[in-house]
């Protein structure tokens, strides 16, 4: 068990978005978090990465994420992507990937100014890892282009690349397949699985596309109205009555 969430609650101005939510993520598993729109999935992720304030605990390898300053979370090995793409849009792909490694960089301001040896070696190491990741994701030729000029699918890849380059133990993906066509989705799925295997990453994914969720997940947690309503393997979830009820009326999920 790599992440253990206990009694997580998030309130917005009196409105309860997540209520007493608990969940465990196994090491190196592919764990999906699903639920109808407004179920509170993204809020759980935002709480874990300290984008929104919350109560409860979320232990990750002995650290309570909910007690950590937001900028320290990446240091313990948790990286994420965002539902609506939070790329650094005025920067190039290369700079975006660079920022993914920034927490690991050891040199300080004076090293930069005086071009010291440690600066140079760190810098070339970083550039190397950028090229490596870019090659792997097939975005090497875009490295010097501003991200805002790239197609949406490529931007998604860059965002995943930015998270992966930080060498996380837990990678949180917030609807990575939204807005992609079938072909792009298939490609992205393969990339994600390849990266997962290559770096032995645990993945926690929020996703609407049931076909993909069912095909990649080891375990699925289902949320509705801010609470957990079911948990289990894909086959268990498919047969769960509560889940079917929750999705009733939200026909978009039956598209596949």
């Amino acid at each position, binding site marked *: 068990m790599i992440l253990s969430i206990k009694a997580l609650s998030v309130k*917005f101005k009196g409105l309860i978005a997540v209520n007493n939510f608990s969940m465990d993520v196994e090491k190196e598993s592919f764990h999906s978090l699903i639920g109808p729109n407004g179920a509170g999935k*993204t809020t759980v992720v*935002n709480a874990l990465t300290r*984008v929104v304030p919350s109560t409860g605990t979320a232990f990750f390898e002995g650290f309570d994420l909910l007690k950590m300053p937001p900028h320290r979370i990446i240091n313990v090995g948790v990286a994420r992507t*965002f*539902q*609506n793409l*939070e790329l650094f849009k005025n920067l190039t792909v290369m700079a975006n990937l660079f920022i993914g490694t920034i927490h690991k960089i050891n040199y300080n301001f004076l090293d930069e100014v005086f071009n010291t040896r440690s600066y140079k070696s760190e810098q070339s190491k970083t550039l190397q890892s950028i090229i490596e990741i870019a090659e792997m994701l097939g975005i090497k030729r875009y490295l010097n282009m501003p991200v805002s000029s790239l197609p949406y699918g490529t931007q998604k890849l860059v965002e995943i690349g930015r998270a992966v380059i930080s060498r996380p133990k837990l990678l949180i993906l917030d609807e990575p397949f939204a807005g992609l066509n079938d072909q792009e989705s298939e490609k992205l799925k393969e990339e994600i699985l390849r990266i997962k295997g290559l770096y032995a990453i645990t993945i926690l994914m929020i996703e609407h596309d049931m076909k993909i969720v069912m095909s990649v997940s080891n375990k699925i947690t289902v949320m509705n109205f801010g609470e957990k309503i079911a948990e289990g393997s894909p086959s268990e979830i498919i047969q769960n009555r509560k889940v079917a009820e929750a999705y009733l009326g939200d026909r978009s999920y039956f598209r596949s």
Partner: protein
Amino acid sequence: MVFQQIIAGIITGSLYAIVALGLVIAYKVTGVMNFAYGYMGMISAYIFFTCFSMVGMNYILSFFIAIAFGSFVGYAVERGLLRPVRNISPASMVIITLGLLLVLEGVALQIWGNNYQQIPNLLNGLPLILRFNGGIIVIPQQNLLILGVVTAVIIALILYLNLTFQGKAMRAVAQNEEIAKLMGINSSLMMSISWIISGSIGALAALLVAPQTFVYPDMMLNLQIMGFTAAVLGGFESIPGSIIGGISIGIIENLVGTYISTNLKTTFSLAIIVAILIVKPEGLLGSAKARRV
């Protein structure tokens, strides 16, 4: 004396409030912080002066010509200057309005020359005198008029924005232009209207204050700065907020001037305002905007 100072603060504050109001209307819909706002009003004051004192038209006619001119300036500035560059950064937008300020200041000087000009009060009767336990507060009718006009404008605006279709459409554009467009709202018309309203409020403010300040190119300098501060203190997007912001600043200034220091009055007043903003970063009546990520 506290009570006297608070009353006096409300009077001064109502001037800040009306300037803040005009700034907020334009900001809400088009997102522009207009640094030339007071100077646009100043031109209208000169127009009034020209009609009334130089041409010899009657007061009411001159007044409406000046207001109409103000709304035209608002329309022209939005259409001609800001619309073509809608998507540049807020800082660039500030600089465009700074350029406009310089032009208006220079133009006024070139056209109307280097004399202070005078325009009369609309109401010239005996001032309202309130006496209480030894203190006295004198409110000239013009100031009562300002108070009344500010109240009327606010009520009218709130009714307009909440009850009429156009007002609702404007609020929709203010909240999300893209969605408003999809819903078939003519967002470009709404932006023009917001600047027309803003421009006429600016002209109104200048006309109301001109009998006190006299008419000259920099007559609105202080009011404009205080108007900004009031707008921000109130929450920048909130119409009642700009009024509360303006009046609070008027009162804060007077109390600081009376009990703390006169030569550091502005400093202490601004320090209090900054302190309020640190506690409530979205202003007194503003709402915190949570961005979805």
